[in-house]
């Protein structure tokens, strides 16, 4: 087990953040993907209720990969000099710090395949959080983490950030494990402005990478226009 890397100051994201249609200004810890026509077309496919499961899987995976790539850009790198096969020296950078994924069950699991395509054989912890019938508050039902999680950067995975309730609970659990707030990166596909406000005011140092910020929540706390229940569409149950 290597030593704990110093919680380096977060690296700035390179992309210009343009998704401010439903939230302006964005909290400083929130980053979106570059809002290109192509990205919008991907979202159009996965939002369409007539999209087949195969297409839903393929196109949501494309977005997840881009989100993970963007999330990883917030990890520290160090200068590294190497020799190329042509005999030249090259001043590059090396990745620093160990990472792990933590998915919030069940929908968060759907993002694991995309994560593994970018981070080969990454360790993945799991958290099950459900609404307590009596208190109507999110309650931790189950969690399983890599033993050295407090030494790692954590990519927290949950596709939809609606009210932010379960995400806040998940971060609470991670911090109880000794993971500092600034070493958690929360990755989701679609976020509501309400959820982002609640979440970032509670954890202002924690980076949130979101693909798209939607209009808001309906009376049942579902994201509008959203894409329905991500896990249901992904797993068809």
């Amino acid at each position, binding site marked *: 087990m290597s030593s704990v890397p110093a919680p380096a100051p977060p690296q700035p994201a390179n992309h210009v953040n343009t998704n401010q249609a439903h939230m302006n200004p964005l909290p400083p810890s929130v980053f979106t993907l570059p809002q290109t026509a192509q990205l919008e077309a991907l979202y159009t496919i996965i*939002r*369409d209720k007539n999209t087949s499961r195969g297409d839903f899987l393929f196109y949501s995976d494309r977005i997840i990969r881009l989100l993970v790539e963007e999330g990883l850009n917030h990890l520290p790198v160090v200068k590294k000099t190497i020799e190329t096969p042509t005999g030249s020296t090259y001043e590059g950078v090396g990745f620093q710090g160990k990472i792990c994924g933590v998915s919030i069950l069940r929908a968060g699991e759907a993002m694991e395949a995309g994560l593994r395509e970018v981070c080969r054989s990454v360790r993945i912890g799991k958290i099950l959080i459900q609404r307590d019938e009596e208190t109507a508050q999110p309650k931790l039902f189950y969690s399983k983490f890599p033993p050295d999680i407090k030494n790692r950067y954590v990519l927290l995975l949950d596709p939809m950030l609606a009210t932010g309730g379960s995400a806040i609970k998940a971060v609470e659990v991670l911090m109880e494990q000794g993971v500092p707030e600034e070493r958690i990166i929360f990755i989701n596909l679609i976020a509501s402005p309400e959820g982002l406000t609640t979440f970032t005011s509670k954890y202002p140092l924690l980076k949130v990478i979101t693909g798209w910020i939607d209009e808001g929540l309906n009376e049942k706390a579902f994201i509008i226009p959203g894409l329905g229940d991500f896990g249901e569409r992904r797993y068809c149950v």
Partner: protein
Amino acid sequence: MSHPDLTTGIERLVLGEGDKATEVAALPPKKNTVLVSHGRPPWYGEDGQRICDAFVIGVAGGSASGKTHVARQLVKKLGSIPTVIILSQDSFYRYHTPEELALAHANLLDFDHPDALDMPMFAACLADLKACKQSNIPIYSFAEHQRLQETKYLYGATIIIAEGIMALVDPALRALYDLKVFVQADSDLMLARRIKRDVTERGRTVDGVLDQYLRFVKPSYDNFVRPTAAHADIIVPGSNNDVAIALICTHIRQQFQDRANRFRAKIAIPHLYVPPKSRSGTSSPECKLEDLDLICLPQTPQIQGILTILRDRTTDRQDFYFFADRLATLLAERSLEFLPFVSKTVSTPMGVDYHGQEPDLQYLCGVTILRSGGALERGFRRVINNAPVGSLLIQTEHETGDPLLLQAKLPDFVRQRHIAEKAWVYLLDGQIGTAAAAFMAIRVLLDHGVQEDRIIFAAFLIARTGGISVLRKAFPKVRIVCAAVDDRISEGWIEGGAKPGESNRTKVWLIQPGMGQIGDRYYL
């Protein structure tokens, strides 16, 4: 789509340098043949434009006069011409109406009249091939007496031999020939050959053959075929014609030599524009990065880290493979942002409408430049799962340094000209150093009718002082997307000889600092 067993199917034979003569002599006597020897050298200038047409020979003469034999002897005697297509007029019989079809099956349809042939289509196909474009020629089935739905794709010939009894009849066809040959044989000799052939090979009776001969073949020859001898540049006897064939070959070689002398200086060999080693590292004014109009991925910490791993000589193959795929995925995502999009409204499961976008294109395909372009293919597949992917094998000839097109396996979207004109093509190669392969690949796509501004070229690495500036000038509308731009390119040696028995080292152009030989590191 290929029908190897059709009598009119075109066989494709790949011949080695040394064994050409024997192989050709042993060719089965099929009508349409594509002969390929070594690869095809550049056929375009440094401005990207084609510098010469294919050389077209028309061979006419009576039925059984020996046209096919003459065509084959020409190929045999010419030796190492890159690609020769022998195109038979038989492919161009018209599409028959049901009435004609009934006549044909009763052996009452006159196939020996010029009207039986689709001359405009013959001329159009030949004109395309002469202009170095692709052509999809019809396939005619003698068993069904009908033109089939399928077509046969042809591309990339240096010499085209069009043969058939009516080859010199149509003025539009005659205008396309660089050399017109008429094969002359006595009528009794042709009839004797015909009887022998039809009785032994086609199971006809002597009476039947004679009846057809007197009814159709003889009048056709007298009325249509024989008079076209007047258009011929040379009349070749139908037998004992070695001298005549030798004369024709000498003429063709002379023509080729003249062309080669005229065009040699113009041929695009981008590595000739690479500045000498001594000056490497200094930026010359003609290759400033901002003038090259390249689309480079944003140099995020992750991209820099991936590039460091890929450049590191100590990276093992497993890591190289993984990070190459990851980088290729990001290149594909960036590249495909250039596709056109239009508004689209969908209904979400929440019961609300969402006003989004969708790609506005019918045809998208990939073309990989082998081998190193293969390292970008998985990334493309992760982004586009249903696009056909073709390949081009382009290698450098070691003596001259010229690129050679060894094989073109293009997707149907590119082969069909009317689709190619609308298609978007994602062209993949590991790196652009001398740009010789990139140049050739783009020219192949343009030859097929793909529009320049619908080609997106993706590469991991580009050498700023390499052939990229020539490529940019020739094809300014092609979008070129890369992960990094390196400053220098220099000549170096790598292990692995071109031919056994030679030195174990091959001279190549190396991008510095570069990533080494991407194909080797990805595959070997």
